[in-house]
């Protein structure tokens, strides 16, 4: 097993957190994992993205050129990363912010209104986790439970109060049809 995922959106949409969360969960499951952020430092504006590779065997470069999957939370990122998706790959889109209807050659395109769903949950900033839930439902790279545990680890120190709403978002995404 080897999954290369790029997560992309605006800065502020929790892109890096999503990637770290997934990586933490993968590590807790004993998998090999690398996480690589795009560093916005020295560039203001534009999109943020990160690359997560999860595998059964040790991983070489953390840099992903042609991802197996894409988690795209805003429109500019679709233009930037869409064309890079591996043939037959999976594209999960936040349809609240992306009206785009074009299909990706051969691949699976899944649209979910992540921001709307997050708003309904009462915390617009968890749209990323909603999208992650959907992605995990489609690619069972790591279990929902592991992500839940990872959430507890990562938020334990400073943001304990956010654990529940994030779990809710994860579930909402996971179960979104």
């Amino acid at each position, binding site marked *: 097993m080897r999954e290369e995922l790029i997560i992309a959106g605006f800065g502020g949409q929790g892109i890096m957190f999503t990637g770290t969360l997934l990586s933490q969960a993968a590590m807790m499951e004993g998998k090999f994992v690398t996480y690589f952020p795009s560093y916005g*430092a*020295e560039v203001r504006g534009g999109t943020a993205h990160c690359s997560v590779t999860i595998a059964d065997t040790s991983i070489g470069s953390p840099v992903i050129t042609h991802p197996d999957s894409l988690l795209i939370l805003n429109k500019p990122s679709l233009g930037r990363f869409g064309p890079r998706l591996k043939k037959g790959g999976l594209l999960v889109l936040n349809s609240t912010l992306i009206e785009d209807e074009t299909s990706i050659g051969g691949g699976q395109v899944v649209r979910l209104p992540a921001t709307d769903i997050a708003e309904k949950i009462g915390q617009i900033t968890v749209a990323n986790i909603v999208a992650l839930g959907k992605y995990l439902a489609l690619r069972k790279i790591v279990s929902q439970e592991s992500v839940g545990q990872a959430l507890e680890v990562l938020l334990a120190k400073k943001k304990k109060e956010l654990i529940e709403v994030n779990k809710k978002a994860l579930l909402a995404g996971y179960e979104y049809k």
Partner: protein
Amino acid sequence: MKKLFGKPESLTTVNHKYCPGCGHGIVHRLIAEVIDELGVREKTIGIAPVGCAVFAYDYWNFDVTEASHGRPPAVATGIKRVLPDRVVFTYQGDGDLAAIGMAETIHAANRGENITVIFINNAIYGMTTGQMAPTSLLGMKTTTTPFGREAKIAGYPIKVSELLVTLEGTTYLARGAVDSAKHVLEAKKAIKKAFEIQLSGKGYSLVEILSQCPPNWKMSVPESLEYVRKEMMTQFPLGVIKDKTGMTV
């Protein structure tokens, strides 16, 4: 109908990469307006720093060169001595001008180079995401002073304009801010004066502008304006610090 306010010719149409509320964009425009008003766009050479304003060459509609971090005064000296009838200015952040570039700053000032220095004091390293700058206030939490800037470890905020006062080579030193329309207009006057001094061959001029950096200060834009007014202006009072020409702004 007449256009009362709009993009000056000396700005390109390229969109800034600055964060919302950042003062850099305002000062870029002020410089462009002054250059337009003085009619010197076609004989101006600007020097962009290494800092958030590193892409300034894309935003100004005149000749602009890059300079390595901290060395704009040396680069400006090289240009101005070769082309003394051109208008040459540097645009520098507090890290660029007052940390790594302190020696070049002092010596260009001391030589009385006939250049203009626009100095953006936002009390932080913006581009590298929020480390302490020489001008960071005591107690300020930055990514390299996680417990707040402590004088014993990291020294005191440097008052650059005051530091340069003792140098005989400096002709005009002023400090402004861009936290409000009033201050923006005052800052523009100071910038204009600085360029006029250069045009009349009177020597070194520097305008320090207190500028907000909301994200690295970890503040909202309104909070950052308050910080400029309450904290920054206390440490770095606005006004003309030195004016050898005797004229007031």
